[in-house]
């Protein structure tokens, strides 16, 4: 369980960072749509329409880091299982 949580934390961190980089490394807020600008030939006015597109920002990264820290932190709540020593096991010979 301990290892699984730590692996999950790493996966969340690496996955979020990779996705953020691939999506354009937006250093602003996360966007759920992007403005598309078009210029009207006759008037010269720049019109704006929006296209639905998820662009992760630094708040997305912050959330991923927080999630990763929680997972990694939770892993410390689990003790590592030590092999149970039985009485008839041979002790190593002292030199």
């Amino acid at each position, binding site marked *: 369980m301990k290892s699984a949580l730590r692996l999950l934390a790493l996966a969340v961190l690496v996955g979020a960072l990779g996705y953020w980089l691939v999506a354009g490394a937006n*250093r*602003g*807020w*996360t*966007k*759920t*749509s*992007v*403005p598309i600008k*078009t210029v*009207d*030939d*006759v*008037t*010269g*006015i*720049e*019109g*704006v*329409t*929006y296209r639905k597109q998820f*662009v992760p920002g*630094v708040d997305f990264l912050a959330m991923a880091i927080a999630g990763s820290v929680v997972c990694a932190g939770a892993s410390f709540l689990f003790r590592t299982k030590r092999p149970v020593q039985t009485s008839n096991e041979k002790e190593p010979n002292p030199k």
Partner: protein
Amino acid sequence: MKKQLALLAAFGFATALIAAPQTFDFKDPKGVNNAAFKVDAPLEAINGTASGISGTVTFDPENPGATKGKIVVAANTLTLPNTMQQGHMRSAMWMDVTKFPEITFEATELKNAKTEGDVTTADAVGTFTCKGVAKEMTVPVKLTYLKDKLSQRMPSMKGDLLVVRATFTIKRSDFNINPGQMEDKVSEGIEISLAIAGASAAK
């Protein structure tokens, strides 16, 4: 004598017809008209637009200084690229678009009008109303009169176009937009840029 008087009357009538101010309708069927706004914030400036533009402007090409009119922006078309931020902006805490559905500017006169060719620059004096608060303001405007260009935008129609451009800044506190709150996150000044075209169809 009668003939001369009739001619004079006819000339006067024709002059009045030519010089008559035109009414331009700013409801844009092409949906290009928009008002952009910009608010400074710590991480990045918040840029948005509003597309619900309507209103009329009376413009006389022979006397641009006499221009008057009212431009209306539908508050529920205020748009941001982040839906969560947009929800906050439209909520009662900020713009309260349900209670105050319109943002308007009504120009009553143009001062310092200067015309060069088809372009007139001036200071529009009028009343800006936002979130139920009306305030007298002077806004620098640029008017571009495009004679007989309507058919190029809308082939089925003939007439003229009037392009209005204006950029000005308002204070949040002047219009009761969450005054004195979150000033470290959202700047006090809101920069507004208007670029709109109105049509006057030939009769």
